[in-house]
C-alpha cells in the first residue's frame, strides 16, 4: 500500500497511500491531519513478557464495580444476574483490542485518531474528561477503608495521597516505567491476596453458584426493570471493567510503553527530568503493510496484546469480581444484616458490615484485611486515574491547541497533574467531593455516553484511518457496533423510560 514506487493516490477523507512527486518519503495519509511517515515496525516482544500496559487498565478497571456493585446485584437478584457482567467484561476486552489496533499501528492516541475523523469529536472527549474526572470523589472509598484500619480521617489521607502522587510523578525520570513497576507489584499483591482471602472465607457452594450464574444468558427478573434497579444495573454493566474514558487512555499507555509504532514516539518524563525529553513528533507513523515481513511482525504484536487482553485483563477482572462476590455471599450468610445493608445501597455501611462479618468468622484480622484490599483497590485506581487524565489532556493540548508545542509534553503533563491535584485538595477541604449535586446526573450521563461514543469512534477510526490489511474483521466490527448500541441504548432507555440516568 504505502510504497513510494506506486503511483500517487488521490487524496480523500479516508486513509490512503500517497507520496510526493519529488523523491518525498512515503507516507500514509489518513483524515484531516498531517500524513504519517512510513517507518519500520519493531519486533513484538515474546508473550512471556507478561506485563504490558494492561496493568494500567487493570488498575483503573478493578474498582468499586468489581468489589461492591456486582456483589450487591448478586445478593439482590441472585448469581444468575452475572451473565450481564460476563457480557460487559468480554465487550471491554474486545474494545481494548481495538483501541490497541489503532495505537500500535500508528503510535497515536485514539484522541488523535478521532481528530483525524472530525476534530470536534476529540474536543468532546477533552471537555468530558475535565467535567467527569476532576472531582476527587473516587478517592473516598479507598481512603475511608484506610480510615477504618488506622483511624486517620479520610480527608487527611486523601490530601496527603494527592500531594504524594504529584511529587512521585514529578520526580520520576520516566513516568511510565515507574508507574508500571509500582502498579504491577500492587496488583500482583491484590490478585494473590484476593485469592488467599477468598480461599479462607468462601465455600464450594458460593463459588459454584457464582460461576454457574455467569452462563444464565437472558435471565432478567422483573424487579430489575424497575425505576430503582434498572439505572443501577446499567451503571454496573458500564462499570464492569474499565469505565468512562479509561479505555481511551490505555492507547496513551500503549504508546508510552513503546508498543508497535509507539516505539518511534518519545516517552513522557517527570517534571524534574523534562529537559531530557526528546522532540515529540507532530503526528504518528505507519508501517508498510504491503511488506510481508512487516505484516508478520504486526501479527506478533496482535498476539501479544491479545494475550494481555485475555489473560491479564479479562482473567484478573473476573477473578477479583468472583472473589468479592463469594466474599459478599459468605458475609450475607453469616450476618443477615449485611444483605439488608448491601441491598439498601449505603456503600460504606455495607462494606463495614461485610468486614464485621468476616471478623466474626475468621478473627478480626479478616475484617481488617477486607478493608486493606478496598484501600489497595482505591490506591491503584487513584494512581492510574491521575496519571491517565493528565496524559490524555496533555496529549490533546500538545497536538491540537495552537501554540502548545512551545512547551514540552512533560510540562503539559505536569501542568494538568498539579492542576487536578490542587483542585482536588480544594474540593476535598471546601466542596462536594463528587461534584456539585446539581450536575451529578450530567456527569454520570457523560461517563456512560463516552463509552458508547468511543465505540462509534473506534469503528470510524479503525475502518477509515488504517490501511486495509490491518483493518478489523467484520465480526469485530459487529461486536464493537453492538457495544455502541448496548451502552447508548441502555443509557437512553433508562433516561426516557424512567427519567433517571445511570446510578
Amino acid at each position, binding site marked *: 500500500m504505502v510504497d513510494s514506487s506506486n503511483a500517487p493516490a488521490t487524496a480523500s477523507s479516508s486513509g490512503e497511500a500517497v507520496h510526493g512527486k519529488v523523491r518525498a518519503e512515503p507516507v500514509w495519509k489518513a483524515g484531516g491531519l498531517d500524513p504519517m511517515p512510513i517507518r519500520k515496525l519493531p*519486533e*513484538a*516482544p*515474546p*508473550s*512471556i*513478557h*507478561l*506485563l504490558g500496559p494492561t496493568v494500567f487498565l487493570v488498575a483503573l478497571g478493578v474498582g468499586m464495580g468489581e468489589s461492591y456493585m456486582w456483589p450487591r446485584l448478586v445478593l439482590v437478584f441472585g448469581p444468575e444476574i452475572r451473565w450481564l457482567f460476563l457480557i460487559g467484561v468480554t465487550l471491554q476486552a474486545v474494545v481494548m483490542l481495538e483501541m490497541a489496533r489503532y495505537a500500535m499501528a500508528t503510535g497515536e492516541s485514539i484522541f488523535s485518531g478521532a481528530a483525524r475523523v472530525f476534530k470536534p469529536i476529540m474536543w468532546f472527549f477533552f471537555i468530558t474528561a475535565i467535567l467527569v474526572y476532576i472531582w476527587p470523589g473516587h478517592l473516598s472509598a479507598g481512603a475511608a477503608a484506610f480510615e477504618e*484500619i*488506622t483511624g486517620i480521617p479520610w480527608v487527611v489521607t486523601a490530601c496527603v495521597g494527592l500531594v504524594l502522587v504529584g511529587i512521585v510523578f514529578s520526580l520520576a525520570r520516566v513516568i511510565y516505567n515507574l508507574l508500571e513497576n509500582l502498579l*504491577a*507489584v500492587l*496488583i*500482583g*499483591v*491484590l*490478585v*494473590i*491476596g*484476593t*485469592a*488467599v*482471602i*477468598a*480461599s*479462607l472465607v*468462601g*465455600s*464450594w457452594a458460593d*463459588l459454584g453458584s457464582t*460461576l454457574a450464574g455467569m452462563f444464565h444468558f437472558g435471565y432478567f427478573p422483573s424487579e430489575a426493570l424497575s425505576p430503582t434497579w434498572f439505572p443501577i444495573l446499567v451503571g454496573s454493566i458500564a462499570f464492569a471493567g474499565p469505565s468512562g474514558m479509561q479505555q481511551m487512555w490505555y492507547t496513551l499507555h500503549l504508546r508510552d510503553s513503546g508498543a508497535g509504532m509507539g516505539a518511534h514516539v518519545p516517552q513522557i518524563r517527570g517534571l524534574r527530568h523534562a529537559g531530557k525529553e526528546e522532540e515529540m513528533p507532530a503526528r504518528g507513523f505507519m508501517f508498510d503493510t504491503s511488506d510481508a515481513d512487516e505484516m*508478520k*511482525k504486526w*501479527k*506478533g504484536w496482535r*498476539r501479544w496484546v491479545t494475550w494481555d487482553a485475555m*489473560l*491479564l485483563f479479562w*482473567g*484478573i477482572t473476573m*477473578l477479583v469480581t*468472583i*472473589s468479592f462476590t463469594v466474599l459478599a455471599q459468605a458475609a450475607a450468610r453469616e450476618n443477615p444484616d449485611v444483605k439488608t445493608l448491601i441491598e439498601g445501597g449505603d456503600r460504606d455501611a455495607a462494606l463495614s458490615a461485610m468486614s464485621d462479618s468476616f471478623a466474626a468468622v475468621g*478473627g*478480626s*484480622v479478616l475484617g*481488617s*484485611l477486607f478493608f*486493606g484490599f478496598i484501600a489497595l483497590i482505591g490506591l491503584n485506581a487513584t494512581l492510574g486515574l491521575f496519571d491517565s487524565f493528565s496524559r490524555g489532556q496533555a496529549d490533546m493540548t500538545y497536538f491540537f491547541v495552537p501554540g502548545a508545542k512551545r512547551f514540552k509534553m512533560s510540562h503539559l503533563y505536569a501542568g494538568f497533574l498539579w492542576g487536578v491535584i490542587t483542585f482536588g485538595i480544594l474540593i476535598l477541604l471546601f466542596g462536594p467531593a463528587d461534584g456539585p449535586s446539581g450536575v451529578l446526573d450530567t456527569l454520570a450521563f457523560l461517563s456512560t455516553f463516552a463509552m458508547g461514543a468511543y465505540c462509534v469512534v473506534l469503528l470510524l477510526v479503525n475502518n477509515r484511518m488504517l490501511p486495509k490489511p490491518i483493518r478489523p474483521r467484520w465480526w469485530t466490527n459487529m461486536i464493537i457496533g453492538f457495544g455502541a448500541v448496548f451502552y447508548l441504548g441502555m443509557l437512553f432507555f433508562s433516561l426516557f423510560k424512567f427519567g433517571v440516568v445511570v446510578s
Partner: protein
Amino acid sequence: MSNGKRLLELVLPGALTGFAAGVVAGGLAAVVGQPAGWALATMLTLGIPLAVFGGGYSWLLATGRVRLGGFAPAALYWLVAFPVARLLHEAMVHLVLGGGFTLPDDILGFLAYQGIVSAGFAIGFLWLHERLAPRWWTRVGPNNPEAAAAVDRYLAHARTIRRRA
C-alpha cells in the same frame, strides 16, 4: 559458593512470592494491631508451605523442567500445591493455637474449592514471579551457573519467538 547457597538463590523469587501471600494474610493483622496469635500463626502456617511450593516452582523453571512464562504449567502446579498448602494451614493453625489437630469437615469439597481458587492464585503468582525472577537471576548469574543458564533460556526463548514472529 556452596551448593546450598546457590540453590537458595535459585529458589528465592518463588519462595519470596509464596511467603508474601502468607504475609498478606497474616502480616496486615500485625500492622493494624489485631490478635498477634492468629496473625503470626497464619503468617507461618500458610506462608511457609506457600514459600516452599513457590520455591519449588522457581527450581522447576530455572532447571528447565517447566516451560518459561507459560500460564498452563503454573496453573497445573498450583492446582495441586495450593490446596495442599491450605490444608496444612487449616490443620496447623488450630494446632499452633492449642485447638488440637483438626481437618475441615468436608475435606473433598474443601480441596475442590481450593483447587478452583488456585487458578487465581496462579495468575498473581506468575505475575509477580516473572517480574522478580529474571531480574534476580540476572543479578546473581555471574556467581551462579544455574541462574545464568535460566537467564540464557529466557533470552533464547525470546530469540525463538522473534524468529517465529
